[in-house]
């Protein structure tokens, strides 16, 4: 299996977490029809926004980590 040596392990774990929070059916079932507000937003909409935030943050953090460690040049 190809695993790039320069990528910090926490980045790989975060990417796995991205897939779980976006894809896991039990999470979809849990928020189905949930309209109670969280920060003023219906819970089911809030779920998708949180998923989007987690994934977006993971990519930006991964790039920052790899760029600052110099592994992108290798």
């Amino acid at each position, binding site marked *: 299996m190809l695993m790039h040596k320069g990528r910090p392990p926490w980045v790989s774990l975060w990417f796995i977490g991205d897939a779980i929070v976006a894809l896991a059916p039990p999470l*979809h079932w849990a928020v189905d029809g949930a309209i109670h507000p969280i920060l003023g937003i219906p819970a089911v*909409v809030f779920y998708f926004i949180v998923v989007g935030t987690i994934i977006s943050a993971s990519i930006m953090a991964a*790039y920052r980590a790899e760029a600052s460690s110099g592994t992108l040049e290798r």
Partner: protein
Amino acid sequence: MIITFGLLSTFFALVVGILQWSGIRDRTFADYAVANRSFDARFQAMSFLNTWYPGAIFTAFGGMAASVGVTSLYLLSYSLLTVVLMYLMARPVWIWGKAFALNTQPDLMALRYNSRDVGTLSAVLGIVSGIPWLVLGMQALGTLFQYLSLGTLSFSNSVIAGVGVITIRQIWTVRMGMRGVVISDMVQGIAAYVGGTIILFGLISWMVLAKGITFQSLDARMFAIPGVGSKEGPLYLFSLILTGAIGGWCWPVIFVRLFTADSVRSLKKSAALAVPLSFTFAGALLVFGMLGSKVAGVPSHPDDVFFIVSQEAGGLWLLGLAGIVVLAASMGNIDGHIQATGAQIANDVVGQNLRLDQAQLIVMAKSGMLGVTLLSAWLACLELPALFSIAILAYQGIVQLAVPMFFGVFWKRGNKQGAMAGMIVGFALAVYLELIFPGYLPWAFGLTSGVVALIVNLVIYVAAAFLWPHSRDEQMRVDALFALANGEPLLPVAEKTARKPA
């Protein structure tokens, strides 16, 4: 009509003017197919977005958000997950592309599996599957043109007008190849996703502040997603997100973005630049669509939500600007699609059977692009009631490239037998299941035909990997490829064994 079409014409002239001014001349096929791997992260990010989000996103997903509500937000999940995949693939794919002068997705498949047949098969699947979507993209312009004509044009005349405009636009795509596509993607992307996001936030504010529409105004059914007990089945949403995320990279037009960057750094930086814009744009579009469902006229024409709300909020000028946004997004997707298809016809279909020099390859690519443009334009002007169903069939089929592609990039054991058999069986099974059970499979808890076929495809691929282990030479070749992707120098002996298949 003068205002709306005047704005559209001005933008069209701006894009064409920039392309003319750039004065691109391609000397080699690598120039024409992948712009000689020369673009930085900003161009890469915008080019990815301009290909990923076609103009039809405003009608299809805007309309879906307005009619069924929160389920449409799956677009957000899969569009962001696909950037994670881009980040992961960036290094091996770009390095192999640079080292072995790969110009297309089938080039990479042929290299990895040491088999031109695998490359040609994936090229044919990509080209055939792409045509219905190209036709749909052209037809979507009909909706735009009809709305901007303020009802003056009939739908069939609007389609003809839209197809005419996008066909004229292809003159510059054919002439300038990938460099022209990426440069125009920057202009079109700024209009579509920066301008579009600003307009969407403005319209959301208008609906909340001027019309008093909030999430509390919406019906409870707008917050339901297919779950346990739904008619689709509990795994339906999972299937949509999975096939959306991995399927994106099966399209040649998306995949070739990995070859146009000037470095791995640019590619990864482009992912970091694209993802916040993608999140903001798609999130704004879907929230806008949901709230827009309460605007008069939208419930009966949900696909027109962007145009209806724009016109009501800002009159013809805002409607014209909305038209620019949709046209810009449409041009980016259609141009890229035609360019990638032409390059594959030359490189992976004709080029495999005839020995062509650089100039002949470019001529063949241009001829292929011209042929695809004319064929799609002709089909778009016909009444094809089954077109959308065929496009869905094609999507479930092309997703089958995901197994040999992703496993080929990340797993050394996969072989050409598994890649070929998996793709053929997966494609045929996906098409068969989609024909029998369109949409989802009730007996598979809502899994789609594409996902069920992917599982079979994967079983075949893995089984073949263990049944027919690599020969010693092939193992050395694959080891050398993976070592190269990991930053280790390619030794002369490995360079010889890891070469592109003849």
